Every structure is written in structure tokens, then in C-alpha cells.
């Protein structure tokens, strides 16, 4: 039943309409639709795991003439993670918003963002990707500015302008692709593409546009203020999902579409930028005074790790080593999504209780919220990359591949980044455990604390210990011609 891919997009879209018409019931609609959408996403994942990649032609028109939705292992896994994080953030959001005016505005925008994310992961058409990018971008901007506070609105406006710039550049690349190859369908283009000026100019344009949206150094300047000033559930979605979606598109374009066109030098450039992101982001996170700002810079750093994989893909020949590295990258992306979501939700709980999120002054508040502090610790483990988190396996693959291809330069970067991550995580925890623990309830508010805790547990335990099925799934899907040619 491949219609599940349609339901993952149609359900949140319909929910958004209902929430816009009946804002007072937004929370009920949001959570109910969220559960249903997650179920649809799980259905997609199950189908992909058992039957291989899915392809759905919207309207019944052959792809090319019409638009196709694709779900292979990569898309299905990210879809699952995104829906899980979104549901957790939705549950948290039912308790977060105190002002009715803001709360009523939140849910329709939130569900539209959800629609865009799902549509993006499943998109199989270059221009459809553009429209989903715009939907996602505008929804993210509107959510980031929710509440109307000056720092949030200023950061959101900058985010919007950067997003528009990225989208226009991306669209220029799409125009070139259509000019040269006469189609917009991903599979069709990948069969016709050849190394020629139109192809690599289009690749350059589309990559730059997407890097702006993925906040890769040095195009990351808009991210920290936006993520730090947005409401907590929005920050979770922005850091865990929105930038991840842009990274997913770069991965998809480089590995599937433009595979004959990419050069080792261009991959190395991405790696260098990724390394700079790791070091700069981790350093700034260490210096950050506010917990949410620290988490935002940590996102910059963690995305850097993901881009470090590109020169490794270029250096490894097709085979099991490359498949293992690819699995590591996906695992790192999934873990970061869950961990960063957990961290922002927990930070939101702390900020609500304490009235601020300054790291130095968190002591009393953290004492009274043991579940949340535990969540931060777990998320921190996943961000540092300690076992048994999924990030440990991901970074292990990164290091193994770097040594195997002889690209030793990335090894100290990863180690330094992990050390800095340990530093900033333990700094927060050190401030949180300032006093002796007082007697108190373990979990003070279920709706607020459990979602974050659940995400952190998934990041640190489930994804690490349960990574084997993931690997087989990715390897099985990699061999099938979902995109006109096996990437691995």
C-alpha cells in the first residue's frame, strides 16, 4: 500500500487547515494528527524495509510529465526520525505556550512545517523540492518569529532573506538542469546527466543554495540567533529537522543525481568547510552564555561532521566500506536529530522554570527537575559521541573511513570536536549539579519532560544498540536502482 507516502503529506496538511479554522482546538488537532502522521511514516518505513524503495506517481502521470514521490531507505529513515521528533515536540508544545494568542497561531503553522518536511523527504522532482523548500522556509520563519519579540523577529527576518537567497540560487540550478536535460524528475535526470558545463554549474548553484539552508560554515551566521530566540519546540524542529532536510538534499543530489559530475576536489571543499564548522561551532558553543545559544552552535558543529563524510565517499571505492560509511553518516544524522530535539525541549523546560537560560545560573532549577537534567546528560552523551549512542558508531565509521582512505587530516578534527563537545556538555552539567540533590519528584510534568526524555533515550540507547537492522536496511536499499543506478 504505497499510499502511505501520500498520507504522510496529506494528514498534516489537512490538520493545518482544521487548526486554522478552529484555533482553540489546535492542540488536540495537532497531537492527534501527529500520531496519525507518525503512523503513516512508520508504515512507509516498514514497507521500504520489507519491499524495497517505493515510488508513487502523483496523479497517475508518468514521472517526468508528472511528479513522483520516492521513498528509499535513506528517505524513510529520516522521515521516521523527523516525525518522531515532531510528535515529541508537539506533545511538549501543548504545555509550553501560555499566551492564548500565540498558542492559537502556533498549531496551523506547525502542521504546515510538518507537511513541508514530509513532502521534502519524499520528493522526487527538482521543482517540487523547490516548492517544499519554500513552504518549509516560510513556515520556519513564521514560527521562529512567533511571539513578536524583537530579537526573535529580527533573527527570523534575516533567516527569511537568507532562505530566499538560497532558494533563488537553487532555482537557477534547476533552470540549467531543465535546459540541458529536458526533465525535472530525479531518476530521469540521473540517467541523462554527464560531466559538462551545464551539469556542474547547476550542481554548484544548487549546492550553494542548499548549503545556505543547511547552515554550513561560513554560511551559518543566521542560525545561532534564530534557533536561540525561537520558542523551544520551534528551536527543536529547526535544529533537528529543518537544517537536516537541507543536508539530506545535498546528500541526495551529490550521491544520486550529480554522481558523475562531482569531483574529489569539490568533495574535499565540503569536507574543509565541515571541519571548520566542527571547530568553530564547538568553540562558540563552549563560549556561549545561554543554553539555547550553546545548543544552536552545537548544531553548526554537528552538521560539520555530516559534511566531513563527503570527501570520504569520494575516496572510497564502491563496496562494503563505502556502504558502512554511508550508514555511519545516516546514523549520525538520525542521532543528532533526536539528541538535539531532546536538548532544546529540555532547555525549554529549564527556561520556563527559571525564567532564563543562562548556563551559569541554572543550579537551583536543575536540582528541581531531575528528569530534565538527566535528559540533558543523555543528549550530551549523544552529542559528544560516547558509546552506546548512535553518534559513537557514526563517528567511529567516520574515523575508520578517514584512516582507510588516507585522509588523516579529518581525524584530529573529529577528536578535537568531540573533546570540545565534552567540554561544553560537562560545563552545563557541572553548573546543574552545583548543590547536593534535594528531595523531589522525579518527573514534575509529564507532558513537558517525557517527550524530551524519550528522544534522548532513543538517541543514546536505541539508535546505538539497535543500529544493526538500520545498516542492513541501508545496504539492501543501496543496491537497488531507485535512482537509476546504485550509488554504492
Amino acid at each position: 500500500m504505497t499510499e502511505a507516502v501520500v498520507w504522510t503529506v496529506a494528514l498534516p496538511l489537512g490538520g493545518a487547515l482544521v487548526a486554522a479554522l478552529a484555533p482553540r482546538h489546535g492542540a488536540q488537532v495537532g497531537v492527534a494528527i501527529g500520531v496519525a502522521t507518525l503512523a503513516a511514516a512508520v508504515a512507509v518505513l516498514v514497507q521500504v524495509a520489507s519491499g524495497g524503495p517505493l515510488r508513487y506517481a502523483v496523479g497517475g502521470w508518468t514521472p517526468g510529465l508528472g511528479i513522483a514521490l520516492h521513498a528509499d531507505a535513506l528517505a524513510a529513515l529520516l522521515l521516521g526520525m523527523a516525525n518522531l521528533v515532531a510528535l515529541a515536540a508537539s506533545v511538549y508544545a501543548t504545555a509550553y505556550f501560555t499566551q492564548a494568542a500565540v498558542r492559537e497561531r502556533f498549531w496551523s503553522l506547525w502542521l504546515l512545517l510538518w507537511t513541508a518536511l514530509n513532502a521534502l523527504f519524499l520528493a522526487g522532482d527538482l521543482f517540487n523540492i523547490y516548492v517544499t523548500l519554500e513552504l518549509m522556509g516560510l513556515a520556519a520563519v513564521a514560527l521562529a518569529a512567533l511571539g513578536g519579540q524583537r530579537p526573535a523577529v529580527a533573527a527570523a527576518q534575516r533567516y527569511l532573506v537568507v532562505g530566499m537567497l538560497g532558494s533563488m540560487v537553487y532555482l537557477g540550478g534547476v533552470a540549467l538542469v531543465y535546459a540541458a536535460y529536458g526533465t525535472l524528475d530525479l531518476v530521469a535526470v540521473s540517467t541523462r546527466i554527464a560531466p559538462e558545463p551545464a551539469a556542474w554549474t547547476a550542481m554548484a548553484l544548487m549546492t550553494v543554495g542548499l548549503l545556505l539552508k543547511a547552515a554550513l560554515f561560513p554560511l551559518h551566521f543566521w542560525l545561532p540567533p534564530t534557533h536561540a530566540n525561537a520558542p523551544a519546540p520551534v528551536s527543536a524542529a529547526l535544529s533537528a529537522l529543518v537544517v537536516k532536510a537541507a543536508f539530506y538534499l545535498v546528500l541526495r543530489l551529490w550521491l544520486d543525481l550529480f554522481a558523475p559530475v562531482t569531483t574529489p576536489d569539490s568533495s574535499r571543499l565540503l569536507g574543509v568547510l565541515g571541519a571548520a564548522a566542527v571547530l568553530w561551532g564547538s568553540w562558540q558553543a563552549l563560549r556561549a552564555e545561554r543554553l539555547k545559544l550553546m545548543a544552536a552552535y552545537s548544531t553548526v558543529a554537528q552538521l560539520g561532521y555530516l559534511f566531513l563524510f563527503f570527501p570520504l565517499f569520494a575516496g572510497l571505492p564502491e563496496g562494503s566500506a563505502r556502504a558502512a560509511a554511508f550508514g555511519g553518516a545516516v546514523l549520525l544524522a538520525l542521532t543528532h536529530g533526536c539528541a538535539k530535539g531532546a536538548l532544546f525541549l529540555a532547555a525549554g523546560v529549564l527556561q520556563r522554570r527559571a525564567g532564563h537560560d543562562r548556563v551559569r545560573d541554572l543550579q537551583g532549577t536543575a536540582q528541581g527537575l531531575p528528569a530534565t537534567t538527566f535528559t540533558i546528560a543523555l543528549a550530551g552523551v549523544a552529542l559528544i559521541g560516547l558509546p552506546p549512542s548512535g553518534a559513537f558508531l557514526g563517528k567511529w565509521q567516520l574515523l575508520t573511513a578517514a584512516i582507510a582512505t588516507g585522509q588523516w587530516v579529518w581525524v584530529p578534527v573529529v577528536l578535537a570536536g568531540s573533546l570540545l563537545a565534552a567540554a561544553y556538555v560537562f560545563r552545563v552539567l557541572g553548573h546543574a549539579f552545583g548543590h547536593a540533590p534535594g528531595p523531589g519528584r522525579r518527573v514534575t510534568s509529564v507532558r513537558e519532560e517525557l517527550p524530551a526524555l524519550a528522544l534522548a533515550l532513543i538517541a543514546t540507547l536505541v539508535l546505538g544498540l539497535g543500529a544493526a537492522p538500520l545498516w542492513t536496511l541501508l545496504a539492501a536499499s543501496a543496491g537497488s536502482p531507485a535512482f537509476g543506478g546504485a550509488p554504492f
Partner: protein
Amino acid sequence: MMAELALQLLDIMLVAILIGLAWATLESKDEGRGVVLFIAFGLVLALVWARLAAPDVAIAEAAIGAGLSGALLLAAVRDQKRAAAQATDAPAEASWEASRGGAVPPAVPWALGVLCLGLALMVAWAFAHALANGAPQRLAGEVLGRLSESGVTNPVTAVLLNFRACDTLLELGVLLVALLGIQALGPQRRPYAPAEPVLASLVRWLIPALILTGGYLLWVGAHAPGGAFQAGAVLAAGGVLLRLAGRRSAGLPGGAALRLLSVGGVAAFLAVGLALLLAGRPFLGFPSAWAGALILLIEAAATLAIAVTLIQAYLGGRVPSADGGSEPRWPATPDGPNP
């Protein structure tokens, strides 16, 4: 032969005017003048679209790209100037005006210019190469070949509402997101001036004409240039005119009716698509016999949604109620004539 030469001369002139207007827009010292030049650019661009046999795009560009974008930008410039005039003892906030003598070191524009020139050359070369070696048919052959199955005879409408309906569905979602985002920013303070009597009486004739034109564009979009976007933009222009003529609510209904109209486009599209899915067909897979009627239904809902969304965007998000709400008002005038 002479006709071809004349046409090529026209082309060169149009391109020169286009690039000249773009340059002037970016370089103009006064922001209001820049916006006016931008509107002129949009109108010349509409001429270019007509020259390139793209009448659908030409109408949309004139109505939305030049018209409504221009109205939004002009309103923003007017608000800035009003704010600057009121803040007489805050000269530092005159950063709204072009004060290039600021913190930008002189080398940066040069470096940017070189960078953008390099980019232009690279993209131009790639484009020329693609034109020369790319397949000439592209998707046109397929679309025109299967046009008869789509239920309409206007190829652009067929692509928008049938073959690539998924894009249009999401694009209506983009419009809705923008509206919701604007509304979430809180009520906007929009003082307005009383209408001049000439405009107020002209509106009595203009609004029915605009409504008729919008309806015509919607109806004819199935077999001639036109469609939901163009029709919606024309209706929105009518709303803007009403506002300028003194009707505070710009002809919009209030409350639940307005919300219903705003989401109606996406709702109709999604409802039809899901109904087809539940009936065993692919999502948004219109049966050939019904396609024309379904497309018209969706387009009608979309026209209204586009119109009310663009009008609300111009109003700044909140439709003023009859009692005036939180708006500071200048000396009141009676509402404009009924449309």
C-alpha cells in the same frame, strides 16, 4: 526577413530597457523611487513575457509581480516615511534612507561586483552550452501530446492543475503560510487617509468590472490564457482599490467566513485529491471525463483564496472590524460606495 530584423531589434531594446530598469532600481537613492522603478520593471517584464509567447505569465506578472508586489512595497515605503517623520527627535533611525556612507568599506562592493560578474559568466556559458546541446523538445512534446487527457485545452492550466498538481497544492500552502505568519505578528497599525471623491466614485464602476474580469479569467483559463492565479490577482487588485477608496475592510467578510475563504483553496484541492484516493484512483488523479469540472471547482476555490490572502497581506494581517478596533484613525469619512 525585414520582420525578423525588426523583431530582433525590438528584442534588444526590451532587454536593454529591462536591465536598465533593474540597474536603476538597485542604484536609486530614494527608496520610493526604487519601488516605482521596480513596478516599471515588472510591467516591461510582462511585455517580455508576451513577446515570448507566455500570455499566462504576462497577466500574472502584471497583476501579481508588478501590481500587488508593488502595492505591498509602496505601502512599506509609505509606512517607513511616516515613521521617520514622526520620530523627529531620533535622527539615527534615518538608516531607512539610503546612507551608503555607512560602515561598508569601499572595497567590498568592488569585490562583490567581481564575484557576481564571474558567476554571471559561468552561468551564461553553462546556459548557452545547455541550449546548444540540450534536447529541444524537453517536456513540451509529452505535455502537448497528452493534453487531451487533462480535461482542459490551455497547456499551462493542464500542467498547473493536473500534471503537476502537487506543486500547485503546495504553492497554495505557501500562500497560506505567509498569511498565517503575517497574522501571527499581531495587529498592524495602519492609519489611512480619507479617500478622494474621484477615486470613491470611480470605484463604483471599477469594482464590478474587476469582479467580472476576474470571473472571466477564471472561466476562460481552461482554454485560453488565464486561470486561478490571474483571476485571484485581479480580484485582489479590486480589494486594494476598495481600501484606497476608503473602505477599511477592503470588501472582505469577517471572522469565520474569511478564515474559510482563506483556507478554501488548499482545502478544495486536498479534498478532491483525497476523495479520488479513497475512491481507488491515484492521489489527484482526475478521471479524464471529470477533469475539466474538477479543475474548475478547484480553481474557483483557489481564486477566492488567492484574492483574500493577497488583500489581507496588503491590509497587514488583520481585517479592521466595523467599529475600528485598535487602529488610530484620522478624521473619519463615510465608507466608500457599495461594490
